[in-house]
């Protein structure tokens, strides 16, 4: 049979900061990988293949940095693979790593994703490297305004997401922003960046890396700590512009979620999924993705935020790690979502743990809200019983 189970047995990440001047790019990725190997109770020699993901090379000014990072990631004499799918790349890096195991190609695979944004000018690179960048916030604000008009959501929903994710981030020892004293008023009074997004509703620019160790079924069963099982993966793309495109509610986002739910047997996502890590770089993307991934009915996503359902103690916690709003090394941000979902079903998320989480999803998106990567992970291969 071609498809074999893949288990996540090691997760590591760096302390994310505005500027990690204490390490080189190689030092940064190695820090995350070393923690993942320690978590997996493995050493460099145990790894069969390495997958590296990051967003555009123009962020750091190093072309194809996987060539230079082969040594630091212990890839010498092994297969080394480089993924780049824009903002969804961290998710794709996890998926490609898991496929190397589920295809039977390798027994133990290390996926690493990073961005060291302080090495260059992220805003310049986000504009395609041609200057005059409106930034990601400028690109997404029109979609957000359209969502607000369409759904009739009250203006404080975005502020609530900003507060909730930062309070979660304050519980995550690796988060870049730890704003334990954040309030709705502080968000509301912070400078307006891209109407309706205030400064505190926007993601930071971070240096950071994340690493995940995958093994086959046997490795998962023998792991020293509880594994997370990869239940389903999906990558869907649509054009950034086309006649009739709904950029607020992209068809590719629906297709991605539907494929995952079908593969896992999820018929009622809100009830059956225990928690979710969604790529929310700007506050309003929480309700938008809850709808586009069919967790909430159309126009109802903001009500989940408003009712507290998405809080750490709610019935559908979202972004327990603090999310992209608390740490954003762009190339790693997707894998950080995917890793947090795995951490939750392993029961190892400590202060940001959702009690009894058995089934979690993670998502990342990229470019003009057109590339989607998603996976579902479980505490067992059949968490729905």
């Amino acid at each position, binding site marked *: *049979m*071609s*498809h074999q189970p893949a288990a996540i047995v090691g997760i590591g990440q760096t302390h994310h900061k505005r500027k990690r001047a204490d390490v*080189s*790019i190689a030092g940064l990725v190695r820090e995350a990988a070393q923690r993942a190997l320690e978590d997996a109770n493995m050493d460099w020699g145990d790894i069969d293949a390495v997958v590296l993901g990051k967003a*555009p*090379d*123009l*962020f*750091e*000014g*190093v*072309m*194809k*940095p996987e*060539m*230079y*990072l*082969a*040594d630091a990631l212990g*890839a*010498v*004499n*092994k*297969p*080394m*693979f*480089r*993924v*780049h*799918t*824009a903002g969804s790349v961290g998710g*794709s890096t996890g998926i*490609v790593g898991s*496929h*190397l195991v*589920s*295809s039977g*190609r390798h027994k133990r695979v290390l996926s690493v994703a990073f961005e060291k944004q302080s090495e260059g000018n992220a805003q310049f*690179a*986000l*504009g*395609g*490297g041609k200057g005059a960048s409106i930034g990601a916030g400028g690109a997404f604000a029109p979609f957000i305004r359209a969502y607000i008009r369409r759904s009739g959501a009250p203006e404080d929903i975005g502020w609530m997401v900003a507060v909730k994710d930062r309070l979660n981030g304050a519980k995550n020892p690796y988060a870049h922003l730890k704003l334990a004293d954040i309030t709705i008023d502080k968000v509301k009074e912070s400078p307006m960046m891209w109407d309706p997004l205030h400064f505190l509703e926007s993601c930071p620019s971070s240096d950071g890396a994340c690493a995940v160790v995958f093994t086959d079924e046997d490795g998962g069963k023998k792991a020293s700590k509880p594994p997370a099982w990869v239940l389903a993966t*999906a*990558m*869907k*793309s*649509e*054009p*950034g512009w*086309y006649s009739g495109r709904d950029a607020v509610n992209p*068809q*590719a986002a629906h*297709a*991605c979620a539907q494929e995952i739910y079908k593969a896992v047997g999820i018929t009622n996502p809100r009830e059956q999924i225990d928690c979710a890590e969604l790529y929310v770089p700007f506050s309003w993307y929480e309700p938008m993705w809850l709808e586009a991934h069919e967790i909430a009915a159309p126009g109802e996503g903001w009500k989940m935020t408003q009712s507290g359902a998405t809080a750490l103690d709610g019935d559908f916690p979202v972004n327990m790690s603090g999310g992209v709003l608390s740490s954003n090394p762009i190339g790693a941000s997707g894998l950080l979502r995917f890793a947090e979902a795995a951490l939750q079903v392993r029961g190892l998320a400590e202060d940001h743990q959702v009690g009894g989480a058995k089934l979690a999803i993670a998502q990342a998106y990229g*470019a*003009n809200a*057109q590339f*989607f990567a998603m996976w579902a992970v479980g505490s067992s291969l059949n968490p729905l019983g």
Partner: protein
Amino acid sequence: MAPTENDIAIVGFAQTAPDRRTQLTEADLVLHATRAVIADVGIDKSEIGFTVSGSCDYLSGQAFSFVQNTDAYGMVPAINESHVEMDGAWALYEAYVRLLQGDIDVALAVGVGKNSNSDPSTLYTIEFDPYYLTPLGADTWSLAALQARALLDSGKATERDFADVVVRNRANAKSNPYAQVKGDYSADELLAADYVRNPLRLHDLPPTTDQAAAIILARGKRAYDLCERPAWITGIDHRIEPHLPTVRKDITTSVSTRLAAQGAGVGKGPIEVAEVHAPFGFQELIVTDALGLDASTEINPSGGALATHAVMVAGLIRMGEAANQITKNGKNRTLAHATSGPCLQQNLVCVLEGDQ
């Protein structure tokens, strides 16, 4: 052979006409290559279960350059799609692994590179370790020259051997309609030229090419619907070496090629034709030695990477040419090789076999 559900074959290959400086965009090139391979195989694009491309932002001179290229696929409704910042040969590897998941039967791998946008002697300095190597200003040509010098000093080859490689590849390229550099030359006339980077002359260097290529893969019995004689991938592997050439034990050999060849099972039988990705002519000597090939194997009937060399595409073209030898030319067992990085740092080897 009776294919199992885990057997995957190359069933179609297309490339655009190579150009020293095209006016087309990368998206145009991808569109032309993709349409051509879909027509070659005779399917509707909706039958493609996974699409993956290899390209490089720095060659395009633009961040997120692959995003525009995806417009060539027709992604309404949404498709399963991915991208690697590697040669299209590695995009094919991702497609191969994706097919092994077992839920789809057909995949498309694309490579595209507009190399005319930049001066290789300046661009490739930033492909290196940014703290220690890039500041030296050493480019790929200079590092290749150091490797060539080491090969000469080892006594394994002479400058005339380097020239002979070029003479043979350019002569082979005459029968390749997609060759940019071709013709009849003598080693004497090539050796009369000045050095560009001692001991390398201009003819030892890869040409600058704008090009795209595309390959369609199919799994199991589906391959026979799309191709009369599929080129089955019976082995594929890729390996990387230390980045800094001086850290490698011996740059006159290619350890990563040897390991990849073992992983791909090259030695399990004779190889009739090998398409070797040697951007610098002399590297063909290093690679064929590491692959364990002897004089019974025909090397680069297409003219190889000395005939066209669009970085991010040249490796995928080797896979397509080696597959054509089986699908169109009656050969039974062929090999494709792709390389990346300074002094052959990273190498991929693929063995293809036809039904007998």
